[in-house]
């Protein structure tokens, strides 16, 4: 009896689920990295992150995330008057946030490296 392989679309669905899980864990790091060089106002930050479809972010999810990071002390916020419309809210990394980002990036690099090592090991065996 031959074993039938999974249809293409089924593989695609599994892959989509996996990417959703992967992205979830990386959301905070992405926000912290986006603020690592300079402060940004909310709309600018949201657009910069949503422009990268691989990250799978939607605009609505980022504001609660920013609010939570602020509560956690990773980012600070300040309001600045805009020439048109409501005042803009600028976000920047705090010292804790910068430290956290550094740790998270280092750990992610280790994970990626380990994944690569596992693959190399498997191939050599």
């Amino acid at each position, binding site marked *: 009896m031959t074993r039938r392989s999974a249809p293409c679309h089924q593989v695609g669905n599994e892959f989509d689920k996996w990417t959703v899980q992967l992205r979830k864990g990386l959301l905070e790091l992405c926000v912290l990295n986006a603020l690592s060089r300079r402060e940004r106002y909310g709309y600018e930050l949201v657009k910069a992150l949503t*422009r*990268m479809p691989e990250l799978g972010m*939607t605009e*609505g999810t980022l*504001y*609660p995330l920013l609010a939570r990071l602020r509560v956690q002390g990773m980012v600070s916020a300040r309001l600045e008057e805009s020439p*048109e*419309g*409501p005042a803009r809210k600028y976000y920047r990394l705090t010292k804790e946030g910068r430290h956290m980002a550094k740790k998270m990036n280092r750990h992610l690099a280790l994970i990626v490296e380990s994944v690569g090592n596992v693959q190399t090991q498997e191939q050599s065996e």
Partner: protein
Amino acid sequence: MMEWTKSARDEYERCCESLQAGITPESKYAELDPEELLEDIRRHVYEDLVASGAQTITQEHVRQAFARLDVHDWCAVEASVPRREAGTQSPGRSPWIKLPVGCAPTIFIVFGILLPALTLLVELNSGMCADEFFDPIPTVWHALLVATVPVGCALLFFSPSSLKLRLHKPYAVLLGLIGIVAAFYTLLFMPVLPMAFFGLALFGIGLMPLSPAISVIAIMLVGDRFFRDVEPHVTGTLRRLWGGVALGFLALLLARSTSTLTNIGLRMATSDTVESRAEGIVFLRRFGNEEAILQNCYFEPGFGGLGIREGRNTARGSLEELLLGTVTPITSSEARDVYYRVTGRPFNDVPPPEGYLGAQGWRAPKTWGEFDRGFGLDQVSRRLRGLELAESLLDVKLEPDAAVGYLEWTLEFKNSVPREREARALIDLPSGAVVSRVTLWIDGEEREAAFGGREQTRNAYRAVVRRRLDPLLVTTAGQDHVLVQCFPVPPDGGRMKIRIGLTVPLPLHSGETIGVPLPVFSERNFGLAEGLTHSLWVESSAPLEDLCGDLEARAGASGRHVLRGFVSDQRLNDGRPLMRGSRRQEVLTAVAQLEGEQSLVVQTLGQEDVAPPRRVALVVDGSVAMGEYAAAIGDALLALPDSIEFVLLIAGDTLVEEPLGEAQPAARREQGSAALLDFVFEGGRDCVPALVRAFDYAGDDGEGEILWLHGPQPFEFEPIGPLIQHYVRADCGTIVRDVSVKAGPNVVALELGAAGVLRPLIRRGELEFDLTSLFDSWKGTTQRLVLKREQIPNLSLRIDPTDTVSASEHLVRLWVYDEVKRLLAVPGDDNREQATALAAKHALVTPVTGAVVLESKEQYEGAGLQPVDPSEVPSVPEPEMILLVVGVLSLLLFSLWQRRRKGMTA
């Protein structure tokens, strides 16, 4: 500043309220401050609306902004707050068409990318649609625009989402551009769509006409996917899409602009009203495309491009006109007329249009289907692709003392297309020259022509041509012009060789200098092989002088003088002499034995007084060919003597007459010279109105003269009849001195020549030199050298051996030609028959006789013709020369002895 509609503001508030209510203790982010979150969302939506660029914010704008936010997964908002569709990235919008998973990419690649690419390649290669209906790709720009459709579809289809986002601006422009191109072609192919559906349903063919419509669907699909990919993340994409549409429309308009403007100009130039026609010509000179007009000159619709019938041009390729249904037919002869007026060149003076894309064309010309409308007829007609002159040899032998020359022009044609061709050429002969030998090579053997009545030879030629056998025909085509036609130039690189022999009276520059005029092509239906030059060999008993710098002097056999070299066709055509020869000034008489009769032809050189004209009308053709000579004519004009009244008439689109009013002679000349420099020489102009005015100015008292400087004029615009009538009825003896600066067909010159009014100006050098010399000669009464030929009985000749030379039989031929013209000048059948018999006997091509070479004895017998005995034909050198010289010298000695005896008796 943005303006909000009431519904937009209401929607905004409603969504915000819903959000506020939705952030409950049970929600995902219950620990967060709802007020703060709400403020963030409000700010974001506002910034988003500003970024959209909309001046007026509508309810839909607000809904889209909230949909992009998509707060449903963390906030229990009302269902009425817009949300993003599950599984898509496009807010509030599902894919335009959902194709079955798996087969979608294949279908798209086949129909959206490969089909339009294939259609374009097939049309470019075969011209299928261009042959049958209209040319969808009339320019290279159209080809490029059409190519953007498959390329654009492929780019949009295969690009990853990240690339689309990064390049969303150019991609949106591209999408708009290919969309409008595909839509335009769908509209264009609309009339043939029913036929295509029918063919597809019944025979499974006809997909290509459907290609634009299928492309539109493909572009909508790929566009929909593109917007779903980028819309959630960026704004303003739609604006750029419309920018692309505008760009595509502009590109289509620009690509068509030259041919559209040309078609508009052609309609104007061939309209019913004189004003519109004149405006059309001016319009075409400014905005028209020469190649497009030329294509109209050649277009012969019908039977899938086989061109069985010629005449109506459906303005092929006029997409806009086809769409608007405003196609007005233009005949190819109308287009040829317009081509001359616009460019100043006969349409067959330039190579035929190359393929469908004209000058830019990469599509191979369809020579296999080209139909030769002039086949067997007495017109040169269109240039034939693939037919060219491969070799041209001019052998000239001069008898300078007798001012007679014999010239043989050997022409070899090559045909590179897979179909037999007839080569036709109108040859402009030196003034007074006559064709005295015609030879055709058949299977490597020389066959001499039979000389007979004009119609007799023409009918014999047509009969043989119809049977696709080898004939050659030479007939006259107006004063000093012959039409040469030979068939068949074999296909696939085959060659055909012919030779025309001319007996030429040499113009006397002075008692001791002669000119050596050469024949030129006035019109031809073949091209010249690349780099072809005419190989020239001129031989004389007296020194020869090279005037063009291309010839090399060398010593010939028996101490004869030779000039040889290679001359370009352009140089041969520009009217300037290539060389001149010396002669013995003391020789005043030349004699030649008239074969079979007890008489001689005697040519005597005399002088006659020529009084200068009192009035001169200087007629200058305003065509483009004359432009480079304007300064030379203007400078020469200053040398016109004060005693001569003059008027300068420039044949422009309207007649320019200078000088006007009273002024001192010098001032008038200056005025005329300045007018020439100021005039814009362009296109092709009609000289008839200027010549009519010139005849009026010259008057009826015989003291006026016309000097006409011109280029080619292949068409009659204003009727020439009244001009000839004016001259003939007035019978005033007004002379038109003819100066042609460029070889080419000229119907006005032919008509004036036939009326006997033209007298070519003997060219000795550059135009300014010749004109200045002429004007200098008008400063007082001058003496002109005149050659007079007559037949006298042998014994009545009084010969002075010191001033007499014997001449070859060519002198006899020139006398016979004089006789034929004299006989024909008097109406009457007897004279005509006598002239025909005389010309045929002496093997001359005259207005009443022609020369034809046929393939076999039976063909000659069937036509009632007898070919010339090869041993009796003239050649270079003349075969009978030695015998003739001996004979005439004996005669001279006999005459001298007789005179001395009479003296002794006395």
